[in-house]
């Protein structure tokens, strides 16, 4: 369909305007990380080499003097997010497969069937994390899990499993059952059919789930703040902690923040279609 000139103009105006809204904060963060303290405190400076002279000092400071600290916290985030992702994908895929292919009837437990169970599981995802502040503090100090990687992984797995299971269940239900049935006829056990036939076919769904789990865990703040205090501090907590040490050093915070968001933004740029697919699978049919 041909559109009128002014309609096209309006369309592009909105696209350009919103792209600026989306990108300008990143630009500002990026340029600020190259500004001298003086260039920051003298009001807004916009373009490097034009109204301020860029310096690489803050990046050097971040990666040299602060290099070890940064590496440690980066590693903490990586371990916590990866561990929780692996656990959530495994538990979610298994549980989702069970709910997609078998009939459950919990006679001794509210007479729940598959749909009730699935709803209960996804509802766990929307519980306010504040509910868990007190019991987790007590549980974790009792189990000596405060400030450990395994503690973070456990907490992150808890909030990642529900939607991992939900998305995977949805994905498995859309797969034809005949392939598994013929495998079963050929003498495979249900477990073998699941691992050798269903899982390879579900790679796109698994990738979506893995991306979401990883990004949620990487960005998580409340549990990390509550359950770590030195060794296992993750990047979001490290960044938030820059708030009140020696005043706000915007140039340093900018470099640090960019380092912290780079992995997830790159994931977003490269794997955009998996994200869209995962989102819509979870929400449209549910």
């Amino acid at each position: 369909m041909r559109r009128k000139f002014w309609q096209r103009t309006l369309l592009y105006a909105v696209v350009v305007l919103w792209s600026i809204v989306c990108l300008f904060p990143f630009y500002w963060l990026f340029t600020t990380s190259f500004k001298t303290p003086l260039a920051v405190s003298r009001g807004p400076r916009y373009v490097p080499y034009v109204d301020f002279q860029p310096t690489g000092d803050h990046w050097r400071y971040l990666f040299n003097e602060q290099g070890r600290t940064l590496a440690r916290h980066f590693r903490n985030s990586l371990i916590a997010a990866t561990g929780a992702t692996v656990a959530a994908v495994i538990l979610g895929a298994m549980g989702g497969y069970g709910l997609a292919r078998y009939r459950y009837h919990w006679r001794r437990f509210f007479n729940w069937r598959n749909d009730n169970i699935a709803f209960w599981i996804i509802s766990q995802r929307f519980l306010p994390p504040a509910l868990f502040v007190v019991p987790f503090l007590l549980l974790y100090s009792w189990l000596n899990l405060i400030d450990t990687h395994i503690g973070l992984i456990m907490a992150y797995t808890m909030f990642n499993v529900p939607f991992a299971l939900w998305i995977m269940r949805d994905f498995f239900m859309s797969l034809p059952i005949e392939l598994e049935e013929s495998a079963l006829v050929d003498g495979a056990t249900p477990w073998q059919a699941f691992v050798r036939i269903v899982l390879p076919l579900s790679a796109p769904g698994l990738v979506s789930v893995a991306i979401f789990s990883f990004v949620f865990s990487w960005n998580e703040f409340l549990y990390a703040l509550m359950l770590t205090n030195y060794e296992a501090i993750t990047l979001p907590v490290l960044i938030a902690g820059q708030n009140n040490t020696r005043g706000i050093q915007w140039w340093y915070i900018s470099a640090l923040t960019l380092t912290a968001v780079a992995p997830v933004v790159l994931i977003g740029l490269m794997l955009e279609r998996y994200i869209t697919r995962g989102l819509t699978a979870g929400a449209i049919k549910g």
Partner: protein
Amino acid sequence: MTQPHASAHKEEGRPHERTIKRIFLMPAVIYLLLLSVFPMLWSLSISFTEYQRGAMRTAVDVGGDASAGTPAGAETPTGQGIRLTLRNYERMASDQRLHTAALNTLTYVIGGVLLQYVVGFLLALVLHQDFWGRNIARVIFLMPMMVTPVAAAYMGRMLFDSRLSPQAHLQRLLSSLIGWEISIPWFGDGRWATLAIILIDSWQWIPFMTLLLLAGMQSIPEDIYEAARVDGASSFQILRKITFPLLLPISLTAILIRGLEIFKIIDIIVVTTGGGPGSATESLTMYIFRTALTFGNFSYAAAISYALLVLVVLFATLFLMLGRRFARQSIA
């Protein structure tokens, strides 16, 4: 929803099959029982006791002024004996700071959801058009969603700075142009700070709405539009009578998900205002966190967290009821 187990394996199979189906589902269920259901019930029982604990140190100071949170049962030493009490729930009725936090949280939820839905819908309409550069635009529009909320909060803090940010610069230019002082005290004033927090959250989560609504629009069959156009419907009529009603189910889901997520808001507030000025921007999650960690009043924190849960459940139920009624009316 399709029947998930129409052609599935038999319910009462051999003992072997009962075992295998348990093996699939039980790990996830047991995990959630241990780390979600059990802590919740434990927390509920704590909320009926008086359990104090010393303040704990965290890597980030979310302390604020401690006066408002002075422990109610300070005379009871740390978890001695178990006496059941309703005191924590009674205290909520007169806790001014709690009421402010609840009101703030509702403001964030309603303001955020409205803004995100409206802008998200418009952007989805735009992305649904065919134009050159559409795929690039989609990726750009998605980017804010991936950012760590703490990082988004710092970006917001820089851009809402009342002196050093581009928008402050713009305000100064405007002021000198019209000869009338415009100066928005973004983080200095409770209301403006609330707005700034909503704007930051929206910047981040409008993409979520856009993506979902776009997917919804793409699932509407083209021939419905064709038929409407043949009948001479205008673009606006098509939008109002076809696109919007057909998108209602997904809209409700998307709004519900976002609403429930905003109820959890804490990170943006910690970084931008720290709950201030005073406690004007404090959210319930933040207040619970402070009550537990800074003031060490575990049982009161547990009680408030249940109040938050009640609020969340009320919101979801009311929203779904109203939403379904609205959906029925607009389709009929």
